[in-house]
């Protein structure tokens, strides 16, 4: 139920709507819950609504941290 997928905003439509796309699949969703949506933003889509923007800088930071911990962890394994 808590399904949510990050999708890229491909087009802004009137009345708080937008078209988002993931790997060639596009859907019409509502942007009523986020402020100033823009083409190229990545948003979490849940039951037809964008819930939050993905912060690209934070995503990068998290991945780098994961990669660091991941590589240390591999060294620790027997």
């Amino acid at each position, binding site marked *: *139920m808590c399904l949510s997928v990050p999708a890229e905003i491909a087009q802004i439509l009137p009345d708080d709507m937008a078209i988002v796309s993931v790997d060639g699949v596009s859907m019409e969703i509502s942007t009523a819950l986020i402020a100033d949506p823009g083409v190229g933003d990545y948003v979490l889509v*849940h*039951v037809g*609504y964008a819930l939050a923007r993905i912060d690209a800088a934070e995503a990068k930071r998290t991945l780098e941290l994961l*990669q660091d*911990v*991941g590589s240390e962890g*591999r060294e*620790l394994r027997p």
Partner: protein
Amino acid sequence: MKYVVEFRNKTIAQGLAGAIGAEADLRRPYRFMEFCGGHTHAISRYGLEDLLPANIRMIHGPGCPVCVLPASRIDMAIRLADRAEVTVCVYGDLMRAPGSQGQSLLRAKALGADIRMVYSTLDAIRIAEQMPKREVVFFAIGFETTTPATAVMVRLAGKKRLKNLSVFCNHVLTPSAMHSILKNRNAHDIGRVEIHGFVGPAHVSTIIGTEPYESLAEEFGKPIVIAGFEPLDVMQAILMLVRQVNQGRHEVENQYSRAVKREGNRRAKEEVLDIFELRDPFEWRGLGLVPNSGLKLKQAYAQFDAEVRFSMHELHVADNPVCECCAILRGMKRPVDCKLFGTACTPETPIGACMVSSEGACAAYWTYGRLRDYQPRRMS
């Protein structure tokens, strides 16, 4: 899929498994509850427990809105759907949720009730616009992730002056439920399995932020790590919990910083505050009456409130006495401890809600836990 595939990288997963294995203190158990059904699903989908050392165990919490909906509320919806003039719209997850006496929305539909599966509340609006002579009722369930979608629907219905759309509201609140679990465990469950920390909900937190968990962590002295849904997110959160436990800390940490901010989604919170207010008390399957945990529409929106519009009466339905959903939802028992598991209660013939939803503890155990029990632990 960007922002998805990177967080499913198996090399990093193996590294994280190594780090968790190295940092977990072998002399003590770690019991973490993942509150949210989406995490339960992710853990079983990727077989993550196989990657954890034997002394770390995940306990599945009640964060599955289908699982915690009392059978009485399903019965009430079926009664509504049986009215000739009513069309009930529901999210797909609810169709097979068990009411009393083997009833479900799916069965009611087979018997002629006009019940339609929708993907979004926007579909309910479309249906109401297309069929002005029908009374369209949206059967709303979900935690704070899903509530804003219902709020927007009510606002749009008002704007469009729709006279035939209403909501049967069953939205519930996460921090109240977590509070209830922790409180009841301390009071009654001395000697039972203790929870050492929580993997906090991902998308609920995009809406409410991390701030509401701070008082919980403080009051009960348990660490809470908000985690994303991808397997690397869950594993990183478990590592962070292990570290907090080892260091004797009980803080709220945010692993899902790419989508969750401390203050959450202000706009979504405002939409919800505008339409809904607390309903007290609200019954949860498994947890009983939980204070400050349920929402209803404000008086100003009474025309959109199905319970008012149709004078719906509260029903009281006793759960099957042998069904252990209650204990399972609180993490007190495991699915195999229930006599009905795998016998009378299977995914095809669910008796309790924990088996119906793919996020429920019993459904998760069906796909994952049975395999672990029948095979020796994999050494990867």
